[in-house]
Every structure is written in C-alpha cells, then in structure tokens.
C-alpha cells in the first residue's frame, strides 16, 4: 500500500512575493473583465474557478451577480418587508436560523449577529413568498447566510432568488426525490476513478446520505472556516449545478485510504465520511473536480444514476439533457480520444493517478486526468460546457 498522498496540502508555494504578484495580476484581470463592454463573463468564470477564486469579498460583490446573470437594477431594489405571522415557513426558518450560530464569524458581537439573523430570516421568507413553487429545506439557511455575510441583505436577496430558481431548484421541490436522484451521481463518479473504493462503499451499504448536507448547502453546513466556504461558492457559482456532487466525490476519493481502512459497515463508513476533514487541499480538489466533470460529464453518468433510482418515475431532466448535449459531449470525447492516443505513444507517468487502478484502461484515464490538472484547460472546458448547457438549463437567460 502506498502512503497517503498529501498532494497540494503542503506543497511549497513559490514564495510570498510570487503569490502577491499573482494576486495582483488576477485582481487586474478581474477588473478588466468587469469593465469590458459587454462584461467578460467567461473570464470572470475562469477567475472564479482558478486558484484562489475571487480573492476578496469586495470582488465577490461585483462578480457574483455577473456569474448569476442578475440584472444590475435588481440589486438596487429595496427589499420589501415580509409578513411573518401566518407564514407557513416562518417557524421552521426561525428554528434553523436561531441555531445557526456557528455560521457567524467567531467574536462577532451578539447584537450584530442577532441583527444579521433577522435579515437572514427576512431574505429567506421574501424569496419563498415571491416564488411559491419553492419549498424551504433545512440547510437552505446555510446557503443564504453565506450570501448575506459576503454581499449584504439587499444583494443577497437578488442573488439567492436567482440561485434558488436555478442551481438549487431541485432541492426545493415539494419532496426530496430529485435531490436523491442527484446524490445518485456520486457512486458512478467514484466508480470510474476508483472502483475499489466504490465496491467497498457498496459492500458497506453506506448509501449517499452522508453527502446530503454537502450537496444542499454547498458545504456551508460542514466547513467551519468561512474562507473555505466562499472559495467553494466562487467555484460552484461559476460551474454547472451538478458540480457540488463532483466535488463530493473528489473528497471521498481523496480519503481513499481512510475509507478502505474503515470497518466495512454502514454505520462506520457513514460516520467516517460525514466527518469532513477541515484541512482539505481545496485548490487541488477543485481542479480535480473540474477534471472529473470534463471526463465524466453528467450526461454520461445519467443512465447509471437513474439505475440507482429505486423509484421508477424520475422527473429529473437528465435524459432530456443527455439528448441535447450531443455536441459538447462528442467534442469532449473526441478530445479525450486524442489525448489517449497521444499518451499511448509516449511514456507519461500518471501524475494525477488517484489510486491503484485495476485496469489499464482506467490507468490511462487517470493519466489523462493528471495531465489536465494544469487547471487552465480544465477550467476552460468546464466553463464552455456550462455555457453550452446554458440554454437548456436556463442558467443564463
């Protein structure tokens, strides 16, 4: 057995100065993209995905609305007041918000925190009131609080409303059936990268509920360091709505050794996986998630995910999507074939190999993945894919 790889976590940076230079350059690139006419959203997406994300909350205030394509005039609207009495969601929202103390920066004065909690309740009730088709779920408040803390109440209302009718839409159905369906993508992704981990988890019958809070809160519920949360939000806001499930898979795969050492039992594996390590190498994992998305796009996984379904009638749009995604998919597959051909004719060490793959075919795939870890390409592909999916998903109307 190999020792656990600590890729990214402790790799030496190229010195502080270099980091500063890169930051400055990135900041300048972002400003340029923002001031372009029309705004260069593709560059902003790439910036949000690439190392370090959007760097500061100040930048996020400018870029997040662009990533969600929220019209500027919506950001200036005064938030309307919401009736709390006789509101069907108020009790549950209040209960969850009152308990969300950990989401606020440690050391924040109680009074300030309580004010923000009031705003948090208002945002949630406002969005729900305006969109009666949306149903509140526990964990929604973890998403909203992130926006509130970064962009303030007014802008948060507009952004959360857009997010709720797009990225989070499936979680807000009357039932969680579609959410469960999305969770069904997890195991097929894991299987493709590391069949051993997949088989182990299947044998333990661990299910996927350990990743539920990751998915529906975009990890806001489980990560204690707020900087990590907003970094992930940069990434997810720039990507396809299913990216959080790829990131979940990457976390499981990153913990391969721990998983395989665990007792093969539902309780033990569930327990292990649901305790998310706080020192994850986020940047490495983000680029790996991007790679996996490119390699195994949702349309390719859709059939398997559906096979995991216990209920026959799935309303999820994958099949529809799969049929409309021929173009990007075939492009990606062609690209992959070319890369594989290139690999076969040269000797490349599998730098990005996640584990000991069981077949030569997988080995090859992982090697490809390793090569694309050079983030630029992957990020670009993710962006392109997301954009090409856009018309159908109505992500960027």
């Amino acid at each position, binding site marked *: 057995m190999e020792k656990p790889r600590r890729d990214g976590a402790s790799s030496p940076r190229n010195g502080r100065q270099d980091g500063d230079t890169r930051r400055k350059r990135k900041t300048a690139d972002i400003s340029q993209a923002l001031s372009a006419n029309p705004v260069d959203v593709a560059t902003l997406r790439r910036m949000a995905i690439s190392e370090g994300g959007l760097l500061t909350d100040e930048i996020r205030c400018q870029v997040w609305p662009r990533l969600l394509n929220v019209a500027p005039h919506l950001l200036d609207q005064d938030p309307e007041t919401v009736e709390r009495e006789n509101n069907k969601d108020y009790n549950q929202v209040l209960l969850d918000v009152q308990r969300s103390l950990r989401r606020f920066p440690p050391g924040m004065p109680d009074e300030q925190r309580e004010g923000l909690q009031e705003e948090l309740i208002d945002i949630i009730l406002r969005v729900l009131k305006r969109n009666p088709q949306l149903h509140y779920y526990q964990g929604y408040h973890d998403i909203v609080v992130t926006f509130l803390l970064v962009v303030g109440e007014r802008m948060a209302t507009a952004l959360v409303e857009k997010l709720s009718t797009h990225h989070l839409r499936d979680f807000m159905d009357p039932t969680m059936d579609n959410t469960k369906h999305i969770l069904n993508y997890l195991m097929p992704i894991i299987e493709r990268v590391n069949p051993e981990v997949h088989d182990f988890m299947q044998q333990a019958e661990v299910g996927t509920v350990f990743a539920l809070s990751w998915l529906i809160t975009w990890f806001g519920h489980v990560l204690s360091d707020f900087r990590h949360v907003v970094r992930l939000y940069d990434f997810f806001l720039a990507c396809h709505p299913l990216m959080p499930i790829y990131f979940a898979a990457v976390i499981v795969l990153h913990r391969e050794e721990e998983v395989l*050492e665990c*007792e093969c039992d539902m309780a033990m594996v569930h327990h*292990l996986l649901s305790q998310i390590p706080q020192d994850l190498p986020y940047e490495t994992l983000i680029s790996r998630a991007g790679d996996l998305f490119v390699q195994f796009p949702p349309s390719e996984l859709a059939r398997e995910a559906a096979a995991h379904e216990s209920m026959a009638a799935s309303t999820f749009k994958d099949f529809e999507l799969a049929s409309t995604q021929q173009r990007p998919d075939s492009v990606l597959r062609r690209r992959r074939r070319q890369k594989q051909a290139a690999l076969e004719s040269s000797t490349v060490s599998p730098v990005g190999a996640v584990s000991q793959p069981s077949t030569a075919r997988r080995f090859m795939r992982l090697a490809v993945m390793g090569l694309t870890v050079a983030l630029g390409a992957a990020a670009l592909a993710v962006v392109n894919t997301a954009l090409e999916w856009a018309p159908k998903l109505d992500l960027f109307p």
Partner: protein
Amino acid sequence: MAERDPSAQFGGPFTNSTIPPPRTRIFKIIVIGDSGVGKTCLTYRFCAGKFPEKTEATIGVDFREKLVEIDGESIKIQLWDTAGQERFRKSMVQHYYRNVHAVVFIYDVTNHASFRSLPAWIEECKQHALGSEVPRILVGNKCDLQDSVQVGTDEAQHFADAHCMPLFETSAKSPNSPGTHHNSDHVEAIFMTVAHKLKSQKPLVLSQLPKGSEGTTALTGRIEGDNTAATWGSCGSC
C-alpha cells in the same frame, strides 16, 4: 472508537456458523421526532456525557455511539439522529430504518404541536415495517423549562399507555442538577433502559454479519420479545 478489523468482515457466510468470536454487540437505536425537539441534544448528551454548546439543524442523518457495559458485557449503543423536517423523511431517512433494534420517539414538552405529531411518527415506523417486538419508548424533552410546559405528564402518559410505550420526561440540558424537576429522568438512564431491554431479548445479533447472509441480518423479525419488563407492559391492542 471504531473497530478496525476489516479482515473479519470478508469471511464467507459460513465462518460465522461456527462459534462466533467474542465481539461487541451493537444495539442500533433510531431517534425520531419533530424538528427542534432536541434529538441531537439528547443523543449528544448520552454519548458525550454533556449538553452540546451549539447544535444546528440536522441535515439527513447523524450518527453517534457509546460503549456501555451491561452485566459485564460491553455493548455498543448506536444512536441514529435523524432530521426532523418532514421533507427529509421519505427519501432520505428510509435507509436508516434497516435492522433497527429500538425506536426513541421524542417530543418537546413545551411545544404541544410536537406531541400532536407523534401519531405521524408512529405511522412512519409502521411504514418501515418495524415489528411490534422492536421496543419503542417515548421521551418528553426540555422539562427543565417548567414555566412553559404545554404537554402535561398525564396526557403524555395516557398516550404512551395507549401505544404500549414507557414514558420518560427529561431534559438534555440539566438532567443532573438537583431540584430543577423532581420527576426528571436522567438521559443516561433512559437509553440504558432501552439497552437493558434489548439485552434481555434473545437471540440478539452479533454486531455485523458477513454480507451475503441477508437472512440472518434481518434479525429483528425473529426476535422473540420477552415482554416481561413492566414498562413495556403487554398491550393487547399493539
């Protein structure tokens, strides 16, 4: 904490048919009830021995365990702490009802609505095909808040009797501070009562059986409950 003995997990189905190695038995208990009644606090209190400082909404299912000793045998009590919001129940919690040995229903004594929901929770158990031999208990939580009690002991006892469950009233917060509530049960005592009940049932499972021997894992179906414990009574209607 976790046993790390993967080698034992992959034995064929016949390795266990001989005398099984001495292992820690596991009692799997699922904890259910409305959102905010204190499921997380109670399970945490039992497993960690203290009241948690900040608990948050449970999303999906959390899991806690504690090793206890009963009559010289050490037993692992696994508590499955489930989300209270109704929308999680159908799709998400299902999985965790499998092979459950006991059920703890919790309501909040200061919130009558959480008490009125109990029939729905009982119905959920029924839908997951838990047999009547699976012990159930009813726990009224937050009884330290004496000034805001909305569910009286009599009313709760009546309900518990009708459903053949023993009733406990407790507070995850201050179960040990003397004088706060003279009738309050200790959280430890409540879960230990369940554990004793389970231990008295026979034949109980070993912690894990090799996969592939499904017939033997569904042991709850063939437990011959000894309905001797007075608290569980013998209820004709159940």
